[in-house]
């Protein structure tokens, strides 16, 4: 019993200490909970670039070193303080940690979540706890198609946009194509990406032949057999929503076998690897960045500021997860300050910030973000695709085509799948 009491005391002390350690700073800072992958295979492509972006952006905001309209220090003058949590583990873990963030660390806003499953799980909890929560990366369209929320927002576009944009681009670039094939990870993101792409292609090219749809396991790592099948299928175009680790393995294994030389590859999340694997990506491969990010970002002051600061600090250019994180923070800042102004300069409540963010249109390093869908909670943006061309060992993008937000996103209140099925009309 005595041993146990000791243990209990230690545990209680540790629990009490943890939030206290993060507390000691000047008065009334805005606490932001940042949740993203810090361990596991999703850390390197998404989690860590996003965390880095969060760190650089919040620091610069606190120092008042951001260009207009974000030049005010912190959030409306109040310094920003971050609590960073790993997104790894089950959704049960994530809901637990979310509750800890909100109720034990008393954060004011939560920005985070790469995994669509986590986003779906967190959304109702955010409503229950009445805590402003902005999903920065996850792609599933189901969040706002299936539910309606007051406190939950997503400043990044959905995966529907990526797939529709990819189909439009392929159709524009290769009007004579006759067959397509797919290579997507066997989980919701991969299945939805392929589903929307296939449906869109069937609208654009009614007679298109689907040669094969390969769905290897997530993080399988070995793709010889899939590559053989795709080589045998001889489709005009191969669509893949693979990302980082898996995408890199795929490109490394596909390059010596000439897969993407024989069929045009369209890599809807390919942007995160172009700096690392230029030699393995044959010219003419279609590269997406899940929106107007990275190489597709507009040449405006915000983008110049963000990419320079990020590059100076981390020696690599920011990829789309970094853009999405920056955009998510800036969006909340814009709404916060708008609400503060409406509140007579006093610190706004979560409800006021949420109301201000609804239907807001703001600028980010990726251009204009319109909170147009999901009753004002889901952003739409323009998107862009281009083709790779290696010049002097560096991968550049040519034939870049931009598609306005309304052309690649369904109207508010219409489900993506229905919209595609109606021939992009409804």
């Amino acid at each position, binding site marked *: 019993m005595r041993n146990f009491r000791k243990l209990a005391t230690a545990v209680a002390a540790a629990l009490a200490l943890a939030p206290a350690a993060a507390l000691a700073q000047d008065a009334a800072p805005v606490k932001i909970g940042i949740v993203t992958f810090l361990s596991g*295979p999703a850390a390197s492509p998404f989690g860590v670039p996003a965390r880095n972006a969060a760190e650089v952006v919040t620091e610069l905001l606190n120092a008042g070193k951001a260009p207009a309209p974000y030049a005010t220090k912190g959030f409306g003058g109040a310094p920003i303080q971050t609590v960073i949590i790993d997104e790894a583990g089950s959704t049960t873990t994530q809901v637990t940690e979310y509750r800890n963030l909100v109720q034990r660390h008393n954060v004011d806003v939560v920005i985070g979540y790469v995994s669509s499953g986590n986003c779906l799980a967190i959304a109702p909890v955010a409503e229950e706890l009445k805590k402003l929560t902005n999903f920065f990366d996850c792609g599933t369209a189901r969040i706002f198609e299936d539910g309606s929320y007051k406190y939950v927002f997503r400043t990044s576009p959905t995966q529907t946009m990526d797939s529709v944009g990819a189909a439009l681009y392929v159709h524009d670039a290769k009007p004579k194509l006759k067959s397509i094939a797919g290579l997507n990870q066997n989980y919701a993101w991969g299945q939805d990406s392929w589903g929307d792409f296939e449906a869109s292609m069937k609208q654009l090219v009614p007679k298109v032949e689907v040669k094969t749809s390969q769905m290897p396991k997530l*993080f399988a*790592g070995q793709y010889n057999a899939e590559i053989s099948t795709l080589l045998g299928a001889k489709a005009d175009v191969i669509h893949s929503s693979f990302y980082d680790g898996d995408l890199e393995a795929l490109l490394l294994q596909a390059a010596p076998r000439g897969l993407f030389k024989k069929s045009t590859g369209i890599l809807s999340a390919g942007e995160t690897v172009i700096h690392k694997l230029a030699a393995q990506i044959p010219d003419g491969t279609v590269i997406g960045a899940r929106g107007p990010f990275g190489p597709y970002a507009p040449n405006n002051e915000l983008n110049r500021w963000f990419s320079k600061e990020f590059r100076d600090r981390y020696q690599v250019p920011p990829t789309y997860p970094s853009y999405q994180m920056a955009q998510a923070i800036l969006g909340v800042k814009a709404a916060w300050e708008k609400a503060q102004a409406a509140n007579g300069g006093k610190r706004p409540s979560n409800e006021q910030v949420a109301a201000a963010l609804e239907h807001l249109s703001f600028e980010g390093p990726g251009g204009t973000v319109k909170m147009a869908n999901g009753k004002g909670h889901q952003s739409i943006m323009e998107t862009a695709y281009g083709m790779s061309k290696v010049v002097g060992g560096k991968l550049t993008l040519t034939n870049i085509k931009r598609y306005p937000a309304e052309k690649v996103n369904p109207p508010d209140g219409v489900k993506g799948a229905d919209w595609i099925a109606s021939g992009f009309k409804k």
Partner: protein
Amino acid sequence: MDQIPAVIVDGIFYAAWLFVAAVGMTLIYGVMKIVNLTHGSFYALGAYAAASLTGAWLAKGYPPMLSYGVLLGSAVLVSVIVAPLIERGILRFMYAKDEVVIMLITYALFLILEDTIKLIWGVDPYFIAEPYGLLGSFDVGDLSYPTYNLILVGIALAAGIGLTLLLRGTRIGKLLLTVIHDPEVSRAMGINVDRFYLVTFTFGSMLAAIGGAFTAPTVSVVPGLGVEIIVLSFAVVVIGGLGSLPGAALGAVIVGLVRSATIHYAPEVELFVIYFVMALVLAFRPRGLFSLAEPRKI
């Protein structure tokens, strides 16, 4: 049916990879009766060591053809350093515990090693693409395959045949079989059981590291690399019969061929076909395909 050659070639390549990755697990279980989850850590360690050392080798402009030696060397190096540390430092104090408890200890060690790897190498991916393309390609029908894949087949054969010869044909092998049969009696007979355990653990881990090292050129080396390989190795080793070398080989070939056939003919079920095979084999051969008969008890 023109896909059949491709199914077989793809299946063999996958089987070779699986065998190299998994055979160490069956070896360690066979000798020490430990279900070793740090197997995944050694796979990852091998990949990381190979990626960084071979990367440095190539960056210095040394002959790329020798990079295969560097791959092997880095796997040997990292396992010779880390495996004895774990076996001598922690595991040997645990042998008296229950099989499951030892497994949990290796799970705890696996968690610790995951973060250790992250602390050493960070989260950014490592690539060493060069060795994969260096040897050119060969054709099967109208499909071309990088010759590199044959190296893995070679390593798998060497490991399988080498281990078999070692166990069957040498004095050390015979002593090892004695240790496997009854460690207590062996100890009483003056056999240095501790040393056998140390060597077995190191060697088994080394095989995992070699698997990781030779996989490194074909993938991006990222955190979490070693997780999947644990269950995959489990499946292979269990299908074959825990502790059986020919079993592991047969298990790898079965899983490789089934998986490859699935990808070619029914890609949608690839996700769980391995577990399905495992459940099926266990349902009919409760102790795997190559299992020793249970001794009579009364």
